[in-house]
């Protein structure tokens, strides 16, 4: 029966049509969503911010290529995930970050955050946050805008809140905070630009609404409860939302596809947990901004939350093991 067939057909399994989306497109559009914040960072912090972003991206892509080579995989830098990870990490850094800090952080984002767990899709934690946590714990001074950015007139509301109390931040104009007139991560403080990017991601359906909405709701509610308990000691909910990397975390970090849960209810719980944790960390811990740690902690709950599932179609079912006896033999072999 073997004879050359003309024409030779391609055989592939159903479905034979596709929505046309790719991983590269997903990553590319997330980078586009970050564009406004990047432009704002360049405008507010100048070439320093551009330097940090460029270095972080370059190191991330190089590390990814190296890790792929070490693991004997096909190079996967063209899916843009490494570039996006480098960019997200840079957005969390102060514009004053020295080159070695950027290099170490960006390399550990990819190496420790992604490659060590098996690459794309296998990351239990949001990769840029792993790099951030390494830097924040190892070199707290270099990550601190209080000690490195003395030459600026911009306020750092969360530092002031932590060390000088609510009076120090009472005079801050929410509108100015909204447009990014504050210190913090170089990309994470441009709330308006990030919101625009987040809405773009939501419209393009790259992220689902559950995580950002639950995150912001959890953050606002917890802050509101604390303010009710003691208005003198705790800042207003709006201030908590408009400072630090709250909005950045809600739209870009907590929604990381691999490390966030999948279903609707798990996503809502996950977002709420992260949002609540932000305020708890901001109130009680030594770290002014609780967002990265809050999201890392929520990431750890993802496998647990993914167990909350709706009832499968037709109910749960397990194929029973047939006995290896004569009757089965006759049934299958005739």
């Amino acid at each position, binding site marked *: 029966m073997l004879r050359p067939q003309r024409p030779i057909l391609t055989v592939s399994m159903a*479905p034979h049509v596709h*929505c046309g989306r790719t991983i590269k497109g997903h990553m590319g559009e997330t980078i586009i969503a970050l564009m406004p914040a990047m432009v704002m960072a360049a405008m507010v912090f100048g070439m320093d911010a551009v330097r940090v972003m460029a270095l972080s991206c370059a190191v991330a892509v190089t590390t990814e290529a190296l890790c792929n080579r070490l693991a004997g995989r096909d190079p996967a830098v063209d899916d843009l995930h490494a570039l996006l990870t480098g960019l997200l990490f840079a957005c969390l850094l102060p514009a004053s970050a020295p080159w070695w800090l950027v290099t170490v952080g960006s390399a550990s984002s990819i190496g420790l955050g992604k490659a060590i767990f098996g690459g794309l899709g296998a990351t239990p934690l949001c990769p840029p946050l792993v790099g951030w946590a390494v830097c924040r714990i190892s070199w707290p001074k270099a990550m601190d805008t209080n000690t490195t950015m003395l030459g600026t007139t911009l306020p750092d509301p969360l530092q002031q809140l932590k060390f000088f109390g609510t009076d120090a931040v009472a005079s801050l104009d929410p509108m100015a905070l909204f447009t990014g007139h504050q210190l913090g991560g170089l990309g994470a403080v441009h709330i308006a630009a990030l919101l625009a990017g987040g809405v773009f991601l939501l419209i393009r359906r790259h992220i689902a609404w559950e995580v950002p909405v639950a995150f912001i709701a959890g953050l606002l509610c917890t802050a509101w409860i604390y303010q009710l308990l003691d208005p003198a000691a705790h800042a207003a909910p709006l201030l908590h939302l408009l400072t630090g990397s709250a909005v950045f975390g809600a739209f870009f970090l907590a929604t990381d596809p691999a490390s966030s849960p999948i279903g609707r209810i798990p996503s809502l719980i996950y977002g709420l947990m992260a949002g609540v944790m932000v305020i708890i960390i901001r109130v009680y811990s030594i770290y002014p901004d609780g967002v990265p740690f809050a999201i890392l902690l929520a990431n750890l709950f993802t496998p647990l939350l993914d167990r909350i599932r709706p009832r499968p179609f037709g109910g749960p079912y397990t194929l029973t093991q047939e006995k290896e006896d004569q009757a089965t033999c006759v049934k299958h072999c005739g």
Partner: protein
Amino acid sequence: MTDFSFSLLTGETGPLVKGARPDRLRVPLQGHRPVLAEGDQVLAGTLIAEAGDDRGDMHAPLAGTIRAVDRFAMLIETTDDGRAEPQAAPSEGGDILRRWLRSMGIDVRPLRRAPVLIVNAVPPEPGISIHDPLLRDYRKTVDLGLDTARRVIDHSRLFLVAARGNRANAFADCTVVHVPPVYPNGLDPLVVRAVTGGETLPGRHPDNAVILSVRDLYFIGRVMETGRPVTQTVMTIAGQNRLVHVGTPAGFLVAEAGGGVEDGDHVILGGLMRGIPALNIDQGVDKDTTGLHILSKTRAFVPVDGPCLGCGECERRCPARIMPGMISRCAEFKQFARTETFHIHSCIECGICGYWCKARRPLLQYIRLAKYELALLRSAIVPADTPANDQGRSRPADTRPEKNDA
């Protein structure tokens, strides 16, 4: 690729066109046992292979000579006209009628006694409109099929399920249920749910209900009318519905529709979401083939062997509320028993997960592979002719579950 729509609206469909006579037929055998061999002469309607189960026997669609027989197909070179004598239908109902229908090539697996009969008139997939001309122009035959089915099923209630916006004239004393005209609402498990409200595990018969499509009724009616076995199928080809002989090569149908196939093209028997790919253009259509599509190399979706991103898009779109992504990850690493914890048996194989997968993974293929391997695993049968050292093959992968689940 992106102009594909999930809409099941069929609009205006033309009349049912009768296909021309191909000079060669490749009749597919699905577990059928051939009763004739190479070189035998057959008439149209001669029994050529017996079904192993209730699928229905296979008969020669046209008169001719059997040129080749293998496990999967029987090649018949058609010669001249010549038809086997029609047979008289039994006057009894119930099991006698059921067995007779089976011998006439009807798939009688769904035919059981049940209080409810559901007639599915929803297109199974986008772009397939086979039910429309049958309901409209062959009303008498369909009604006869319904009466015959009643003699076996003995139902007391009748439902007709149609897509909202498509034309469907009700039968006598039946309830019409409309479903939204969106794929996958035409698939049997979802149609049953739309009527009874209960969910049946895919691949099982619903409790207290029987589901038949308009096409099934039409062919039962045809058998009763003519006394000749079913050797045809209805296919939507390029928007036109055709009555095609089983075994007609795909290439013949393409040529008839005025198309052409080039190297690297995909020829799909069935719809674009669930259809099976033809291995070559000589492959014959089967009794349950509903359509024919040709996709050029650039338009067709070819999955890639990439990692799962974990974005959850498949899970959000899944009508069976399962996690195709996790199932595919388990199947990828041969952890087939573990796919059951993600409820693989609930999958209705609609292909929607693969359509939306950003990583372009062959999700449906992984699911089918895992189902197949699970069936092997659980049947625990070592075929008698397997050499001793090869026995491990029938129980792959999951011999050390502790290690896999760690």
